């Protein structure tokens, strides 16, 4: 089945140690999003790629970066994770002119 896959499901990282979360899709959607969801809060958009064009939300910290080497893959890099970055990270895809969004199962990040 066409889908959005996030790896790993659970990630534990040390304070200040760079970490990368991955997202892959088989839908051939041209837009990919990264959302951060902290405990008991709504998902918040960090950034998205429209094809190869990167779009950062104004309030996304510089500590967060993203790469999209091809249509299928998108990575979220956290350069120096802090305790406040512990959250569920959700990847989603959509298509130009399409209807709706497809979410991955998320990666739960713990910072110790």
């Amino acid at each position: 089945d066409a889908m959005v896959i996030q790896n790993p499901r659970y990630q534990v990282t040390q304070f200040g140690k760079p970490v990368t979360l991955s997202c892959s899709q088989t839908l051939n959607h041209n837009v990919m999003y990264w959302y951060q969801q902290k405990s008991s809060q709504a998902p918040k958009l960090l950034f998205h790629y429209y094809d190869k064009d990167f779009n950062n939300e104004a309030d996304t910290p510089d500590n967060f970066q993203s790469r999209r080497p091809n249509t299928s893959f998108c990575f979220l890099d956290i350069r120096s994770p802090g305790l406040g970055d512990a959250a569920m990270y959700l990847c989603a895809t959509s298509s130009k002119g399409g209807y709706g969004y497809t979410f991955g199962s998320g990666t739960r990040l713990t910072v110790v």
Partner: protein
Amino acid sequence: AQSVTQPDIHITVSEGASLELRCNYSYGATPYLFWYVQSPGQGLQLLLKYFSGDTLVQGIKGFEAEFKRSQSSFNLRKPSVHWSDAAEYFCAVGRSPSSGNTGKLIFGQGTTLQVKP
């Protein structure tokens, strides 16, 4: 400004009772409307969506929602709640991405549903 309001942070209903979760939105144009459900520690599952046409939409797990343009609302309903429906529910609005639109989803703050036996 674009926003979504879910007025009820927490709702408790008895199993078998009916349910209505409220959602109001503010958006420049008629958006696409979504309801998602999230169990603890899990990702988002789409319950239903509205793009156009019939304003009453049916979703999975026996849920339905009605779009009321005049009230800018998209309330979620279920005639008889099951214990397994206990979860967090998010209403969201967005538009299809295009050259002039990010297509990002705007979420409400969520409603936690507790089901009493």
